[in-house]
């Protein structure tokens, strides 16, 4: 394992921000894994730390295949993480909306540029991403469909579900999109949590990433476990919105199966405690996302459902 500083910036009041990379193996730039770009992506950083721990042992056992280099960057924006902020400390900009970056631009454009310069040219790229809405997800892999990366490759992670997303205008400045434009096969791996650590889920994520690398011949070993992945276009997912505002009482969990007409959640009057609305399943299916905060607004996305 070689630990190196990939990019560094100075602050007037803090120690330098050093973006650290951990390299394993030598040769072709085969796999790059990026963790927390945002300050609240604790689980994303944790999973990367566990991948580094795993790769260190695999490397010591001679399991990194010849002529393959793997790089892991567990945390880019730890300045924000250390002060409990999601976006960049000073101007609240999002590094994951600054790619491919600009070396003469604003601070986060420069960070994105400095990082992107180091992570370009890898054959595969995995970003542990997070969603802007707070809730419980089924862990999944997502591909921004640019036409470059083959969606079938997502099956090599062995997750139950993998999603294909048609990029929207605001997606064009994300790492995933730009990685593909610069010809890296890029995947966004969404974990079931962000702000909190879930060790069990992290173990699964490590196994899935290692499985992917075994299937690409980057790591020597025997394929084990994993699901037969179902590829789903994001357009097929049904979003369930609330029709009232109040206290949210979910009745199903992420990953749970339900039948048409089942009650997915209740909404209570926050002052009087009475049930003012019940949200029922419009079809049979599986809960893919479940909103998790106790209060919800009218039209909040409460569930994302995979119809069966």
């Amino acid at each position, binding site marked *: 394992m070689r630990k190196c500083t990939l990019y560094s*910036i*100075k*602050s*007037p*009041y803090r120690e330098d921000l050093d973006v650290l990379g951990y390299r394993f193996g030598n040769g072709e730039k085969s796999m790059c894994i990026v963790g927390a770009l945002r300050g609240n992506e604790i689980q994303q950083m944790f999973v990367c730390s566990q991948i580094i721990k795993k790769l260190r042992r695999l490397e010591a056992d001679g399991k990194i295949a010849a002529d393959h280099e793997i790089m892991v960057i567990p945390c880019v924006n730890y300045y924000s993480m250390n002060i409990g902020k*999601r*976006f960049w400390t*000073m*101007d*609240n900009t999002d590094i994951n*909306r600054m790619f491919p970056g600009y070396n*003469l*631009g*604003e*601070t*986060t*454009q*420069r960070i994105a540029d400095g990082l992107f310069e180091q992570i370009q040219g890898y054959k595969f790229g995995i970003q542990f991403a997070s969603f*802007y*809405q707070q809730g419980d997800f089924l862990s999944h892999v997502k591909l921004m469909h640019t036409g470059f990366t083959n969606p079938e490759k997502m099956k090599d992670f062995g997750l139950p579900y993998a999603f294909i997303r048609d990029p*929207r*205008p*605001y997606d*064009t*400045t994300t790492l995933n999109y730009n990685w593909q434009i610069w010809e890296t096969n890029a995947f966004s791996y969404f974990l079931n949590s962000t702000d909190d650590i879930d060790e069990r889920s992290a173990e699964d994520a490590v196994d899935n990433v290692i499985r992917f690398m075994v299937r690409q011949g980057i790591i020597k070993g025997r394929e084990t476990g994993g699901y037969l992945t179902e590829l789903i276009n994001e357009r097929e997912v049904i*979003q369930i*919105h609330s029709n*009232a*505002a*109040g*206290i949210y009482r979910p009745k199903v969990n992420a990953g749970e199966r339900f039948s048409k007409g089942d009650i997915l959640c209740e909404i209570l009057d*926050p*002052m009087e405690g009475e049930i003012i609305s019940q949200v029922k399943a419009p079809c049979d299916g599986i809960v893919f996302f479940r909103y998790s905060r106790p*209060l*919800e*607004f*009218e*039209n*909040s*996305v409460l569930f994302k459902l995979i119809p069966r």
Partner: protein
Amino acid sequence: MVKTIAQAGLAVNEKLVIRRNRITNPNISSSGSKRACIVTGTHGDELEGQFVCAKLADYLHENSSALSGIVDIYPALNPLGIDSITRGIPMFDLDMNRIFPGTSEGTMAECIAADIISDIKGADICIDIHSSNIYLKEIPQVRINEISADYLVPYAKMLNVDYIWIHSSATVLESTLAYSLNDIGTKTLVVEMGVGMRITKEYCDQLIIGILNLLKNIGIWNGPVGPVREPILSFDHDVEFVNSSAAGIFVPCVDHWVDIEKGAHIGDVLDPATGRVEEYVTAPCAGRIFTLREFPIVYGGSLIARILGGERNA
């Protein structure tokens, strides 16, 4: 007449409401007449538009007999943001100017965005007032996407701004209010002026004269209009950016909207602990400073100034 044009229930005993104040001449029917929309408050930390809307509404109401069309004023597209000094939409961590045109099938914010578009759609002109952010002070200007420059520049020249910046198209900007409205045929101008969290009365008064002038030119206003200045018009290649190379506190030594020579001293970046000059900031070209840093703390990359002069004077 103040009307709620979009709303959504918040969790506890409150609704998010977007209001529109429609001002017409009570002595004539406004049916079929022209309509102008003045919108602001998309970013909760940009407040210059608040004074423009308040003063314009009061003046038009007092002088409504000089109106021959409709003026719709939307003072707060992101009322929760303004109320909580939050640039984006509180609770969602979203920049509201990246979710247009919205959708009635989307999240609360997207539904609100769709309702706003629906209400403004079909107006003869829309003016979307922004005030930079808390970091930079801007001279009153109109920014126009190059793809709509042909039909927007004539209207922009009526607005009594100092400067019109025609910028290149970027895919990410397709989710702004102005792009979305122009895309459906509702001519929309984006005004940037002043600085975040402040009201610069001089700029607001300047823009109000411009809005009245534009309203007069398109046949909505028959009252008096003050003298209107001729703006400087430029493209991206005329604009030079000055970014900090060092981290520290930036102390300017030039005024805003002044002409400077190439190599002129703009200011210093100081180490706050020692006072040492970390960077002696100079002008990379001759020209006029139309953007100047207001917030003193800088990192490497922080924008310090924009100079109208650019490549031609480098």
